[in-house]
């Protein structure tokens, strides 16, 4: 008896599938897919798994939620006591019923909402990883755009879901949407009437949001997730720089079995954390706010965290910016904070890969990631945009900052108004200096090894510190990068004095390139390293130090420590 019954059955099934759909090819293709190992490569998975949890819990919720704005009175004998006999919409009443009467309903609602917050948080964290490591470079620019669209769709999904229960808070959010829509020049009021089916709030918006929230947006997200993952497979995974890792290989483990186990296990961890949060931490207790009524707006009325930057932008804007021209109101106090500011910030984010590609002038593929310090402009730019967004989110929480830190809300708002312009500049400058400083330190370490703190006395009476040299593996990580130089362009006129076509575009590209790469620290070259090892004469080598500021090497000139 050579094969047992189960093995024969498995073999037969495999054969059945292989002969019909070519399963063995698929399995071979996917199971042998190599993934490099790093915790930051799991951030996107958090988003994916949160989305799966959203689909599962959301399906449960649709079985009890009634997307209707018909007016009813909440039963006198139903929980919670604060809602008994209150007039409300069916959407709100069904949310209450779902929370208080349906077994497990509140848990599902809370898991769903926490998963939504987690989905956005994971997307943002994942995007930060992609951005700061330069994983968006060729050939992955399109996947960056897909990811960006997924983030925007996540915002839309979150916003439409937040609006469904028809409580005061969600109604306030819709009121702001209505205000922003009406602020759009020329078409504003028509667009608002179109969205709300008449004057705000009308009776159509909840059913419309419902369709968007459970059908259109998740459908689009699913489709784009499929594209996103397919592109990951097509492009192969990026990897961090290290010995043996090049743009032509991927160092890691196969999808099957290592990553199947890791990724599968991670799904349950994500689900577990979300269930834990849903079970222990109250979220969006709509009965606190009561059914929507356009008149009350309570203190502490804010959107979910991912929309806070928009809230902050609106809160910071001085109201005087509205004026009337020939009978038409031009609400710059809405247009600037709600359209122009987010437009610039999000637009810069979406287009960054293309802008950087122009500045670099690089057409090669990149599969090895950058250490953030090695691309000072990008890192500084990312930190500046991030700081601006965080500052806007804090401005959207200015009332809570005021009460919790005993500050004057007026002072906070005025401070943020100044920071809005100052903070990006300051954070950009500081981050860039830190990056350049770290690169210089890397050079120092490569050239002279690490300080050990051991002082020895030479026979001549001289004291020197022992420096421990790097091994080849450590050194690889520190020197294995490129420092792009600003683009050089051909002259404006050729040898016969004829103006060259495309010169102005080229000079623009060159100017952009200078902004990106004027300040840079070149990696240590083998020649420099050899010179450093032969007693500190490297600074006399020609060509080795042309792009390093003299201060970077000033210290190393006097350095005596390389006792290898």
């Amino acid at each position, binding site marked *: 008896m050579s094969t047992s019954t189960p093995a024969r059955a498995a073999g037969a099934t495999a054969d059945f599938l292989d002969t019909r759909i070519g399963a063995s090819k698929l399995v071979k293709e996917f199971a042998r897919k190599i993934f490099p190992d790093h915790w930051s490569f799991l951030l996107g998975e958090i988003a994916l798994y949160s989305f799966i949890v959203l689909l599962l819990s959301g399906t449960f919720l649709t079985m009890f939620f009634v997307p209707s704005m018909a007016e009813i009175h909440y039963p006198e004998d139903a929980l919670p006591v604060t809602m*008994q006999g209150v007039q409300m919409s069916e959407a709100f009443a069904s949310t209450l019923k779902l929370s208080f009467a349906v077994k497990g309903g509140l848990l599902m609602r809370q898991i769903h909402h926490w998963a939504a*917050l987690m989905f956005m948080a994971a997307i943002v*964290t994942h995007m930060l990883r992609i951005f700061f490591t330069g994983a968006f470079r060729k050939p992955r620019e399109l996947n960056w755009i897909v990811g960006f669209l997924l983030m925007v769709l996540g915002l839309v999904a979150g916003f439409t879901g937040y609006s469904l229960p028809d409580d005061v808070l969600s109604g306030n959010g819709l009121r702001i949407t209505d205000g922003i829509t009406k602020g759009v020049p020329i078409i504003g009021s028509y667009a608002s009437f179109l969205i709300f089916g008449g004057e705000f709030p009308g009776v159509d918006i909840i059913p419309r949001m419902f369709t968007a929230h459970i059908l259109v947006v998740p459908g689009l997200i699913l489709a784009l997730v499929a594209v996103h993952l397919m592109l990951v497979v097509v492009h192969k995974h990026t990897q961090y720089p290290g010995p043996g890792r090049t743009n032509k290989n991927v160092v890691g483990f196969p999808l099957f079995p290592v990553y199947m186990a890791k990724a599968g296990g991670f799904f349950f961890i994500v689900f577990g954390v979300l269930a834990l949060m849903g079970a222990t931490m109250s979220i969006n207790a709509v009965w606190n706010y009561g059914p929507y009524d356009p008149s*009350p707006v309570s*203190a502490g009325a804010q959107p979910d*965290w991912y929309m806070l930057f928009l809230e902050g932008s609106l809160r910071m804007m001085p109201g005087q910016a509205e004026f009337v021209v020939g009978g038409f109101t031009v609400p710059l106090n809405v247009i600037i904070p709600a359209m122009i500011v987010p437009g610039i910030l999000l637009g810069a984010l979406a287009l960054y890969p293309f802008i950087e590609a122009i500045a670099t002038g690089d057409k090669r593929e990149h599969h090895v990631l950058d250490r953030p310090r090695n691309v000072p402009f990008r890192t500084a730019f990312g930190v500046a945009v991030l700081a601006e967004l965080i500052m806007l989110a804090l401005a959207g929480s200015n009332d809570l900052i005021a009460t919790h830190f005993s500050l004057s809300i007026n002072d906070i708002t005025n401070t943020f108004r100044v920071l809005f312009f100052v903070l990006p500049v300051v954070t950009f400058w500081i981050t860039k200096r830190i990056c350049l400083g770290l690169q210089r330190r890397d050079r120092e370490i490569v050239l002279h090894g690490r300080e050990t703190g051991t002082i020895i006395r030479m026979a001549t009476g001289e004291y020197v510190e022992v420096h421990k040299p790097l091994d080849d593996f450590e050194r690889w990580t520190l020197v294995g990068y490129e420092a792009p130089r600003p683009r050089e362009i051909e002259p404006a006129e050729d040898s016969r004095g004829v103006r060259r076509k495309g010169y102005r575009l080229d000079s623009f590209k060159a100017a952009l390139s200078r902004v990106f790469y004027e300040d840079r620290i070149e990696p240590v070259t083998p020649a420099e390293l050899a010179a450093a090892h032969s007693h500190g004469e490297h600074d006399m080598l020609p060509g080795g130090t042309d792009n390093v500021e003299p201060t970077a090497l000033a210290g190393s000139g006097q350095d005596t420590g390389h006792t290898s």
Partner: protein
Amino acid sequence: MKALAASRRHRLAPVLLVLLALLATGVVYSMIAPAPKAVAEAANADDIATGEALFVANCATCHGINAQGGPAGPSLIGVGAAAVDFQVSSGRMPMSSNGPQAPVKPPQFTGEQTAALAAYVASLGPGPSIPTEEMVDPTLGNAAAGMELFRTNCGQCHNAVGAGGALSEGKYAPSLMDTPPSEIYEAMLTGPQSMPVFNDANITPEEKRDVIAYLVAQREPAAGGLTLGGLGPVSEGLWVWVVGIGLLIGSAIWLGAKSS
């Protein structure tokens, strides 16, 4: 009658008539107008004397020796016992230092001393009196009606569940999560600091009790678990980053570290 008819054209007759008309108006008003409750309170003369002594020692610096007010503090004539009870028993008065707003702190006076102070101030002029136990009993109120009143009149500053909120220039609407029912009632009645007065014509005593019932209902354990401060989406967002992303990045590092 002849004398009356003769004096009809006396030059003082119009003055007399005006005086009579004023007297009649006053009498009619006193019959129609609601009787000020503070006057009805049978204040003990001893209490008033004790209260006056306490007042002169602790409050007169700002409010004036006769509670007439001054540059540093308002007049207390006619604010009633409710205002004194609210300010003193919550520790807001006496104020420890000048600031945008008098904060709640441990009360400086015992219950008896507070009552004496209240009696003294009430004796200066009629004003709202301290509510009875029954008037502030949350079990007699309708929390659902209170919810509607609260979000229409109070939530704008105090937050939807009374967690408090910011006002301009460092002033704030305090959290009502631990405020005793009597103080909630007195605050509505007297409008302390930045708060408007919600008199009995605006929100009736029964409605005030409904509001108290709503606020006390918020102190029950929350249906969904930890309330995270009752501050809404901002605190939820903070916690998803701290707890959620924190735990999951921790797990990701654990998963990523296992193989190597």
